[in-house]
C-alpha cells in the first residue's frame, strides 16, 4: 500500500440553502473531480447540510501569505468610515 500514489486534495464548498453563498466546509481526497463531488456528498452532506456542492482542486487555490499580513490587512484597521455603520438596516433584511 505504501507505493500507492496519493489521491489529490480537494477543497469542498457547500451551500446550505437557496439564497446563501457557498461556504468552505473542509477538504477530502479523491482521484478526480467527479469522484470528489461524490465523496463530498458522502462526507459533508449526510445530515442534510446542503443543496449545492462545489469542489475545487486544493492546488488551484491561490492563498494570501502570512508574511504579507501587515501590508495586506492592517491598513484597513483604522478606517471606520468604510463600514456601513451609519445606516439603519431594516429588520426584514436577514443576510447582510
Amino acid at each position, binding site marked *: 500500500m505504501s507505493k500507492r500514489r496519493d489521491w489529490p486534495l480537494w477543497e469542498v464548498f457547500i451551500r446550505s440553502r437557496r439564497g446563501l453563498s457557498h461556504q468552505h466546509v473542509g477538504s477530502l*481526497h479523491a482521484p478526480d473531480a467527479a469522484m470528489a463531488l461524490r465523496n463530498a456528498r*458522502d462526507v459533508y452532506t449526510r445530515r442534510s447540510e446542503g443543496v449545492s456542492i462545489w469542489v475545487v482542486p486544493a492546488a488551484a487555490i491561490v492563498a494570501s501569505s502570512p508574511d504579507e499580513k501587515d501590508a495586506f490587512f492592517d491598513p484597513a484597521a483604522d478606517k471606520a468610515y468604510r463600514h456601513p455603520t451609519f445606516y439603519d438596516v431594516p429588520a426584514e433584511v436577514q443576510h447582510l
Partner: protein
Amino acid sequence: MSVATLPDLATYALRLGDDSLVLSQRLGGWITNAPELEEDVALANIALDLLGQARTLLSYAGEVEGAGRDEDDLAYLRDERDFRNVALAELPNSNFAVTMARQLCFSTWQLALHQRLTSSADETLAGVAGKAVKEVSYHRDHATQWVLRLGDGTDESHRRMQSGLERVWPYVAELFTTDELEQRLASDGVAVDVSALRPEWDAHVDSVLQEATLTRPEGGPMLPAGGRRGIHTESFGFLLAEMQHLHRSHPGATW
C-alpha cells in the same frame, strides 16, 4: 391493505428485506478497511441506506405475518435456512473490485425493481420503493463510477475488475428468476415480476462494461437460484454468526 394473501405478502417483504439486510452487513465489513477514508464513508452510507430499507421491510413482514415477530426477531433470531435473500447479496467482499462488481450488478437490478414497485398496489411496498429509488440511484452511480475507473484504469486494475466481474457473474441469473409466489403477487399488482427486468439491466450493465473496456462474462456456469428458498452459499453462516452473535448472547441488549 392489498388483496394479496398475507403469507405471500409477508414472504415477499422478507425477501426484499433480507436482500438489503445481508448486503448492508457485507458492506459494513469495509468500514475502516476501504482504500481511503472517503470510501469508508461512502460504503457506510450505502450500507445504512440498505439497513433502513431492511428495517421497514422486516417490520412490515413481521406485522403482516401476525405472529408477533418484530424486525429484531427476524434479523437476529432466524437461522440460515430461513433467510430469503439472493446469493449475490451475501457474496464475500473479497477485494474492492469484487465488491464494486457485486454492487453494480445488485444496485442496477434493485433500482429497476424498485422503480416498478413504486406503483405497487400495496401502499407500504410502494412507499419503501419510492424512498429506495433515490437511494439506489446513488448506489448504482457509485458502483458505475468505480467500475469505469478500474476497468479503464491501469493494466492491473483492469485485470482485477474483470476478475471481480467473473467472480459475481454466476449469481446474476438468480436475480431474474421468478417463482409462483412472485407471479401470484405480480398478477395482483403487488409484486414485480423480476424476469421482466433483464433487458433494462443488460442495457445499463453492458454500456458500463463497454465504456470500462471490460468483457461481459459469457458462457460460464450460472448457479441455480436457491436464496429465495433458503439455500445459501458457504460463507453465509459466518456472516450470520457475526451479525447475530451479540443479540443472541445478550437478548434485548441496548445502548
